[in-house]
Each structure stands twice: as structure tokens, then as C-alpha cells.
């Protein structure tokens, strides 16, 4: 018997695992599209006709954030915490898959499903709504930001699920983070600049706030000061990274103790 590697079969298994969660379809694919249509329809009445493509684009950028949040942050944390509860990672280990191999397959699967969701969302938006065509650089900025966010969300979700090892508390925390971030980062109809000052200060710590407020401004033309966005990425990434490190250290300690 040999140790098994992260091959096509394991990755496909993990993709099926992600897609087996109905919330991924509901919140990761249908919900952002639904929100896109509802909000664009609602704001169209208040803006001049010439501004409609710009407004639609701003809503499109904002709602695109829901995809990594729903698929990775909520979907992965709930899936993985349930797996931990049922000791499925242990069974994978007993069948020759090391924790690192399984983790790699899970990361690839999450990015694959998130990307599929994003492509579908973009196709629906650009084929049904009047949208601005982005400069390649601006589109790339959004794609990179969403991929970076997915990585950070994965670290946070994996860390919290690994520490708590229970579906209930993990789901409760992730739901609170999900809705908290949606409210703070302007995804629930109230823009960041309209929030109370204290809330704005908290919102400034999250990259999502800059994406919802600023990305539409340089979608087709103009310059943008990336410093606050990068700082927020570093901060949010560091917090999630620390949580993940604590989780992995605890796991490693347990494994070390087990082999005394």
C-alpha cells in the first residue's frame, strides 16, 4: 500500500463534495444573480438612463463578492465542520490520504467551484443587463481580488472549523461573519460612506469595502490608489492566517502527542 496523492480523482471527489451542498447553489450562484437583478431594477428608477450601465456595473461588482463568501466562507466551513464531526478526515487518513493531500484537493475544489460560479454570474449579467465593458486591468484587479479573498476565506473557514470541530458553532460564527461583512461592506443596500463613523472604521479593515465602493470608479477609466485596499488585504489575511495557524498548531500538537 502506498500513500495516495492529490490526483484528478480526489479533486473531482472534492468538487462533488462542494456541489453536494445545496447552499452553494442557493447562496453562491442563484442568490448573487437574484440580488443583481433586484437591486439593479430597484435603482434604475432613480438614475438617469445614461447612468444605467455604470450603476449596473457597480451592483455587479458588489454582488460578485457574495460568490466567494457563500461558496468558500459559508459553504466550506459548514461542509468541513460536518466532516470533522463525522471523523471523515480520519477515514481519509486511514485510506492513505495525508491531511495535506486532502487539504490541497479541497483548496483546488473550492477555487474551481467559486470560479465556475463567477463565470456563470458574469455571463448572466453581461448577457441580460446593460453593462460597462471593463479595461483588462480593472477586470484583472477584480478577479485577483476575488481569488485572494477566496484564499483568505478558506483559511478562516478551515481554521474556525478545525478549532471548533462542530457544525453548530462553526456555522453560527460564519453566518455572523457573513452577514456582518455584508452589512459593513455595503452589500445590503447601505453604502459604506452612509454607515455610522465607528462602523466605517471597522469596514475599512475589510477589502470588500473598497471593492464595493471604489472598483466601479476605475472600471472603464481613471486611476486608483491601491494602498488602503492592499493594507486591508494584509490585515484580513493576517487575521485569517493567524486563526489557521492556531488551528494547524493545535492539530500538529495532537498528532505529535499521539506518536510519543
Amino acid at each position, binding site marked *: *500500500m502506498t500513500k495516495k496523492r492529490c*490526483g484528478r*480523482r480526489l479533486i473531482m471527489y472534492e468538487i*462533488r463534495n462542494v456541489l453536494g451542498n445545496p447552499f452553494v447553489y442557493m447562496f453562491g450562484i442563484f442568490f448573487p444573480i437574484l440580488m443583481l437583478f433586484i437591486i439593479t431594477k430597484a435603482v434604475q428608477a432613480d438614475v438617469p438612463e445614461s447612468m444605467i450601465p455604470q450603476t449596473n456595473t457597480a451592483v455587479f461588482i458588489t454582488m460578485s463578492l457574495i460568490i466567494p463568501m457563500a461558496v468558500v466562507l459559508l459553504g466550506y466551513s459548514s461542509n468541513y465542520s460536518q*466532516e470533522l464531526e463525522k471523523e471523515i478526515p480520519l*477515514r481519509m487518513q*486511514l485510506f492513505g490520504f495525508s491531511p495535506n493531500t486532502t487539504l490541497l484537493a479541497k483548496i483546488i475544489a473550492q477555487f474551481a467551484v467559486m470560479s465556475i460560479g463567477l463565470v456563470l454570474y458574469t455571463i448572466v449579467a453581461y448577457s441580460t443587463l446593460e453593462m460597462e465593458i471593463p479595461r483588462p486591468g480593472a477586470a484583472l484587479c477584480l478577479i485577483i481580488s476575488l481569488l485572494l479573498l477566496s484564499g483568505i476565506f478558506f483559511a478562516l473557514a478551515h481554521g474556525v472549523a478545525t478549532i471548533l470541530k462542530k457544525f453548530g458553532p462553526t456555522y453560527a460564527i460564519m453566518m455572523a461573519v457573513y452577514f456582518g461583512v455584508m452589512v459593513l461592506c455595503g452589500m445590503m443596500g447601505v453604502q459604506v460612506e452612509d454607515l455610522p463613523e465607528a462602523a466605517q472604521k471597522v469596514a475599512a479593515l475589510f477589502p470588500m469595502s473598497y471593492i464595493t465602493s471604489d472598483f466601479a470608479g476605475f472600471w472603464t477609466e481613471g486611476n486608483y490608489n491601491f494602498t488602503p485596499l492592499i493594507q486591508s488585504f494584509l490585515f484580513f489575511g493576517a487575521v485569517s492566517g493567524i486563526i489557521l495557524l492556531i488551528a494547524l498548531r493545535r492539530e500538529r500538537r495532537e498528532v505529535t502527542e*499521539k506518536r510519543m
Partner: protein
Amino acid sequence: MLVTIKNLQVYYGRQLALEIDRPLEINKGERIGIIGSNGAGKSTFVKTMLGLTSYKGRIQTELKPEQMAAHLQFNDYVSTMSVRHVLETLLDTSISKNSRLQELITYFEFEECLKKHYKSLSGGQKQRLTIIMVMMQDAPLTFYDEVTSGLDFETRQRLMERLLKWYEGKSNTLCIVSHYYEELELLANKLLILDQGKVIDYGEKETLFRKYCGNSIITLDAGEEHGRLTEPYRKLEAPSHLIALACRGKTEEEDIAKLLIRNNVNFKRSSSDIEIMSINAKKAYYQERGNGGVDHD
């Protein structure tokens, strides 16, 4: 020698969950039944062997953890996954290209289950899924921890028959944890008796039986009259509803049998009753250590 265990101690917090103070050897091809009541340390033994718990002491083996296969008490998989994908992924093979896997699927009449999602399987089907995967690993050392618990009598019987037949003539070493003594009578040639984390005894099934019960035993229903009738004979420790008589030889066995037949008393004769043997092993163990109390139903 496949595995040698020396001075092993496993603690859960401050509680000693398992202690193996005398060297315990597991040899190639042995079928070891592990018995004991709840909390005896049976599952702890399995997990320790698999490297899943911390321990003090030594487990000497050339086997790596991935060379051991295990059917644990709880064997869950992703509930929304189809059984085919669980099988193919965990075994890293394709059913259509693996004749050995096809053989096992047919052997366990599992073809229909392949299309189902894991959550739709019945208890017996779930057990069969893990058994197929564990057998496919064809590991030199395989653990079956309460493989038939929670199954109805008929399913249990069928599963055991198949397990027995599959391993017939094979050199894999099996460690089988079970509460069902009749399963161990069929499957095991050695027994490891555990109680409250201690090794009560370990050895060949027949040797242990002779050590604690004699040549054979005769059991009959407990009752005042039966008690009086069998008074002259040596009684063994037995569950409260039974009287167990130890027969030192053929003559004594025949005497008892004649007496019971004459008095129209139903009885059973056995030379391999694991339940009575383990109860008396426990009694002897605690008496030796100045604690005669043995609880049994």
C-alpha cells in the same frame, strides 16, 4: 512476529484507559478476538495500534500505519456523495478496471448500492461498504471494531459468513472487536480479554477455555431445583440466569449429562463457550489481585 507490545499505557486525561503490562505478541495470520464490556479498552487498543492515540510504552512493528486497515466503530463518509465515488476515490481505482474490486462488490451483493448516495444506505449496507474498502486494502494487519453492531440477527449472520469465507486460507492478521461471542467463536483463534483497561488474559482460544473452564462445560437454566440437583459438581461463574458446570473429563461430563437427562432438565454442552470462559477469567484475575468482585448479567 508482526507486532510486539510492551508496557503500554494509554491515558485519556488522568484516566488510565488501557494498560498492557505483560508483552503481547501478534503473529502473522492470527485471528485475534478482542472482548470486554463497555469501557474495557477495546476501541482504545485499536486506535492505539493505528497510531491515533497518545501512549507510553513500546509498540514494535515494521508495519507503517498505512499498512494497517481498519473498520472502526464509526465509519462515515460524505453523505451526499454517491457510493461509487466514495469507493473509487478512497481506493483510488476505477470499478470498471479493477476485477478484484468487482469481485468484492459481487461477493457482498453490493451492485445496486453503487448508484445510491451514502446517506440512502441502510446500516448493513454502510457496514458492507466499509468492509469492501477495508478488504480491498488487503493489509497485513486489519482491525474490525464491532463490525456487526446495530445490525439485525439475519444481516449479522450473513455478514459474518461472508467475512469468514473471504479470509479462509488468507494470511492477513485480523483483530476483531465484538460483543457477540458467537462471532468470535467462528472467527478468532486467539482471544484478548480486556476489562477496565487491563489485560485479563491473552492466548489461544482453546488454551484459555481449558485454563478457566476445564475440558467442557454444561449450562442449564438457573433455579433452586437445578441448583440442588447439580450441587455435587463444580460450578463456574456464569450469568445470573444460568448455571455453568465445569467438566474436568469425559466421565464427569457423561455423569452430569445422565443426571440431567434422568431428571428431564434441558442443558447445553460446550467446549468453546467464550462468554463463560471470559467471566471466569475475570474472576480469576481479580481474585489473584485480592478483588473478587466480578459483575455480569
